């Protein structure tokens, strides 16, 4: 498999499987991510996207298969992997009762950032969101702004790989567009990103998409090439067809 810059995979997933009793949530999926790539991870609700990400992050025990991050097996090298990977969860990324500033300070403490760096980061936060929201409880901040704070917090440890689980869920199209601009900036900075989404228009932003349904990887490739191969079909038709025939 070719990668954006031809180097060894940043993430390598081989025959990854997760079962809960007799139910198979993720079924022998395999893929790789190259340095500087943006992977769009698509699938209907319950397809297994979050379960896959949680297994990569070591939040769920792998039933079978393996995950390697920069060549390190995540069952043996989780602490090292955690330092390389940033994760923005679908369900929860910030503490709602803390202010935006306090969330940043908490994350900075976890990553042992020096006081001077924290000061700089807080200045950056003031430039990123309206000043009056810096000291507002996160639960009182609008979802779009909250999303930006969450991404900012996710990046505090300067991870090489960033996994974003439904980052644009529940925000307006303009905020989504701006969010993707930030994702491109990160790619330019050399970061590798995986973004799960159920907004099909967002799939176009990715270098490569993976479509998962019922725990199985059913389609993989560069969005433009996949659409051309399907006779210039829209992304929506492509998705519907892939899911429908899986």
């Amino acid at each position, binding site marked *: 498999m070719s990668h954006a810059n031809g180097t060894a995979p940043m993430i390598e997933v081989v025959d990854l499987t997760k079962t809960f009793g007799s139910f198979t949530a993720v079924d022998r999926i395999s893929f790789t991510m190259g340095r500087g790539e943006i992977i769009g991870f698509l699938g209907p609700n319950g397809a297994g996207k979050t379960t896959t990400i*949680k297994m990569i*992050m*070591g*939040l*769920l*025990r792998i039933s079978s298969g393996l995950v390697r991050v920069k060549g390190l097996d995540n069952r043996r090298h989780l*602490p090292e992997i*955690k*330092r390389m*990977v940033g*994760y923005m*969860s679908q*369900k*929860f*990324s910030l*503490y*709602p009762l803390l202010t935006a500033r306090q969330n940043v300070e908490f994350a900075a403490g*976890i*990553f042992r950032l020096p006081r001077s760096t924290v000061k700089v980061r807080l200045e950056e936060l003031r430039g990123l969101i309206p000043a009056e929201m810096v000291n507002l409880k996160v639960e009182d901040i609008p979802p779009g702004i909250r999303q930006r704070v969450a991404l900012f917090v996710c990046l505090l*440890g300067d991870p090489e790989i960033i996994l974003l689980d439904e980052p644009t869920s529940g925000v307006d199209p303009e905020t989504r567009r701006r969010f993707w601009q930030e994702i491109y900036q990160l790619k330019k900075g050399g970061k590798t990103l995986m973004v799960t989404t159920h907004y099909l228009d967002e799939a176009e932003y990715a270098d490569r998409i993976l479509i998962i349904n019922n725990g199985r990887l059913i389609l993989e490739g560069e969005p433009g090439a996949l659409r051309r191969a399907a006779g210039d079909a829209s992304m929506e038709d492509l998705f519907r067809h892939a899911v429908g025939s899986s």
Partner: protein
Amino acid sequence: MTRINAVVRKEFHHILRDTRSLMIVFAMPVMMIVFYGYAISFDIKQIDAGVVDFSATEWSRDLARAFANNRYFRIHEPPPGGDPIAQAEKKLRSGEWKEYIYIPADFGDRLAAGRSAEVGLVVDGSDSNTANLVYQYSQQIVMQYMLSMKNLEELIQIRTHFYFNPEAKSYIFFIPGLIAILLLMVSALLTSISITREKESGSIDLLFISPLKSREIILGKTVPYIFVALIAGVFILLFARFWFHIPFRGNLLVLLFFSLIYIFCGLAFGILVSTLASSQRMAMLGALLATLLPSIMLSGFIFPIDSMPVILQFFARLVPATYFLRIIRGVVVKGAELNHFLIDGGILLGMSLVLILAATGRFVRLRRGVR
């Protein structure tokens, strides 16, 4: 009617699927009645008492033997060296003895001469119920001793002193005990929801994927509550002092020192519950039941531990309140000092470490995806 039926059916489905609640409704009362039924007894057996015999005659030794041969008492001699009275009073203050029998030097000579003699019963009066029973049992033994020696009838006069709580006010004994129970309950409740809250909101994932070590998370979650619980403890203590006029005879710093260890133990227990429970509701219920009931029934708060069956005495030793109860009653009511409770404090510290290690171990398992 059909609509009510629908609601009733739905509720039944909920009840039958919520096995934990069903356990609480059926198994818990049965377990409690069996377990605590044995604990509920005001009778006292094996009262630790001392004999200070200044007479050292056949008469005085017979009296000491009368106490020693009685099933209610375990008779000890004051530790050698120093003033025996001072040693005996130290034992009373530390709670090791409930009473000492003082036999004056002229006891034997006076009885031999057919004159009346005195014997002193110095009773730890901090617990007025126990003190009364100890006094009654002792009085009975002295009477029987007199009856057994026919020529002694009515020659021995008993002089009784109730130490620490001479007016036999029961609240002086119970309120410090209540403080011990409340402090454990509050501490455990504070931390019991700290991890379950994060489990429910999903924020636990942030901690799991962070570079934080599990022990750093557990300690980080415990430390802030030490201050909260300590402030609550001081507040309860001040309330007891000024509202109920509980005398404070000991050193406040000594009490705060042991309170700190005890609070840490309660918080560590709460954290352990938090790692085990699946929801905040279950965690709070678990922390409440596991701290409140054993503390009330087994710690010696109401029922003397010595009167419980051996198996319950074993369980009583697993309850942190058992140790702190002795400390707080000793310091507050009797003015006991730091060195009286080094073993109790050490046990509480050991329990805290075991609990915090167990909580960390459980957290590590959760973090590895073993739910």
